[in-house]
């Protein structure tokens, strides 16, 4: 298993600003994932972050809007840039442990006004 923490747990931001979300894991992992979960919707994968390489973004998500850092095997950040109300969502990081089991952080609830 893995214990994952995220900061901040929630934030209210003004449109046009940026927010950086931190994800910390209690063990070294190869792959970290960033998801978005809008109210009543399923989890949508934003990108996969491997240490030492550029993040891989899913269709509909671009690096300029969601830059990701992965400086080591236990930490990653996701920045939501130039925010608009449509970015209001819960952002979750996760890691894969064992065979295909994903462990999630508690999420960051973002509200953009």
């Amino acid at each position, binding site marked *: 298993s893995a214990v*994952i923490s995220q900061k901040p747990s929630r934030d209210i931001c003004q449109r046009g600003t940026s927010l950086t979300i931190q994800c910390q894991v209690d063990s070294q992992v190869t792959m970290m994932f960033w998801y978005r979960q809008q109210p009543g919707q399923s*989890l949508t994968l934003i990108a996969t972050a491997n240490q030492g390489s550029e993040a891989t973004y899913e269709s509909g998500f671009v690096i300029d809007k969601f830059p990701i850092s992965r400086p080591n095997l236990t930490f990653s950040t996701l920045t939501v840039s130039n925010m608009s109300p449509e970015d209001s969502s819960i952002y979750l990081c996760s890691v894969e442990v064992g*065979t*295909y*089991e994903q*462990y*999630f952080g508690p*999420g960051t609830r973002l509200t953009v006004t």
Partner: protein
Amino acid sequence: SQKIEQNSEALNIQEGKTATLTCNYTNYSPAYLQWYRQDPGRGPVFLLLIRENEKEKRKERLKVTFDTTLKQSLFHITASQPADSATYLCALALPGGSYIPTFGRGTSLIVHP
């Protein structure tokens, strides 16, 4: 397009009964299927994984079945308890590549005492 369907209506049952949740999918030939539990304000928690060549998997009061002909998985909780009340998500991963799962929207389960 690929689609994962879970009942959007909440399932209400009495304590002690068996809860059965359904996950249907189209245009997939998944390598495996997973079930997660998500409580309000929390990240999803991994429960069970079943592979394409398995028909059934059990863990304590949980049972998952996987019918690749019907393209359906059933998730059962026997002797349900109010503490089982949560949203349950199914997730599928395709063979090849990174096996990163795609999530359904989830079904809310409410167990009444």
